[in-house]
């Protein structure tokens, strides 16, 4: 299992054009990122195409990664997720307009160094547990499956504006729980 330091080093060396480091990065993270793309796209061939694009983005974007800011896995996961969602929305020909979400996660201004400790994954779970079940599920689906407000309002059979209100309230509650 690669450590946070390993992954940071590989990203830093990838930024210098080091192919070997890039290969290490691929070997240790591609399965996770492929899992994420598959979850969003639910289509193997398309997830493969997405993964290819994601690693091309990582190769070219590695210079923008600032070690010690965002955790390296967060940076990689966000690239994979956002790219997969862009594809999903392009496929759907989404006219609602929420396509093209932030491509490169923002690691630069003022983002605190937050060491993702072992217990932290548990913490977000605990905070999700403070939400009503279907509201927690809506946030989870928005993140992991890339569902839009339209998808969510259909899934939970509530008007779009109700879904929007639900979700915003859930986000505020989550933030308060994560940072009391």
């Amino acid at each position, binding site marked *: 299992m690669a450590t946070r330091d390993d992954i940071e080093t590989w990203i830093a060396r990838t930024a210098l054009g080091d192919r070997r480091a890039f290969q290490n990065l691929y070997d240790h993270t591609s399965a996770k990122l*492929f899992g994420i793309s598959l979850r969003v796209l639910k289509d193997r061939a398309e997830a493969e195409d997405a993964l290819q694009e994601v690693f091309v983005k990582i190769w070219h974007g590695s210079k923008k990664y600032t070690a010690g800011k965002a955790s390296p896995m967060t940076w990689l996961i966000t690239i994979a997720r956002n790219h997969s969602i862009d594809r999903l929305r392009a496929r759907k020909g989404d006219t609602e307009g929420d396509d093209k979400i932030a491509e490169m996660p923002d690691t630069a201004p003022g983002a605190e160094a937050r060491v993702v400790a072992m217990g932290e994954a548990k913490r977000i779970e605990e905070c999700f547990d403070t939400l009503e079940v279907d509201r927690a599920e809506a946030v989870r689906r928005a993140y992991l499956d890339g569902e839009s407000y339209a998808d969510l309002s259909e899934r939970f059979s509530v008007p779009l504006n109700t879904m929007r209100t639900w979700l915003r309230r859930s986000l505020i509650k989550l933030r308060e729980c994560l940072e009391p």
Partner: protein
Amino acid sequence: MPEDDRAKAGEYALGLMTRAEAAEFAARLDREPGLAALVARWQEDFAMLADEVEPVAPPARVRRRIEARLFDDTKSPRWLAPGVMGLLAASLALVLLFVPVGTGVRPPANPLYHADLASESGELILAAGYDGETGELYVIPELAPEEGTAHELWLIEGDNPPVSLGLMPADAPARVLLAPEQAQALQGAVLAISVEPPTGSPTGAPTGPVIATGEVMTL
């Protein structure tokens, strides 16, 4: 931070905003570092949800496609073909002195070229990066030469005979200032390492076995 912004930062990170909302919000991120930090925190927190996503090993073709797209390896160093080595005897050596960088190697701030020199079995022997601004080539040796030998670095441009770039340090990163014509020759060239006597090749051409080669990539 107003409640509304905390929710908005979350919606932005989730990709739930409409295009117009997202564009407006993104514009604010540039001038409001606190807001950008909030988005980064959401990304960090949401990324933990990915813990529940099972890793799935992608098929090998994905990696091949990525490498084919990023690294065009169709050019092979023709000069390595058997018999060619003998023709290189009269080549000009330009042995430069490598300056050890000591601890904490400063990699190029603006790398223009990079080469990974690997053995036939794929083991990395030396990594090199050229900084276009300082005109220096940085080298990181990954394999020390055997006792009583030295590793010499060669620049091969097309079918021209190898030009020596000097002896490599045994185990510490080092840098060397390249002459402008050498720097110019780097583009599309191949770097190689041969095993030589401790004082370097006596002939000005590689005399010992070539243990590693790598194509110079433009970044």
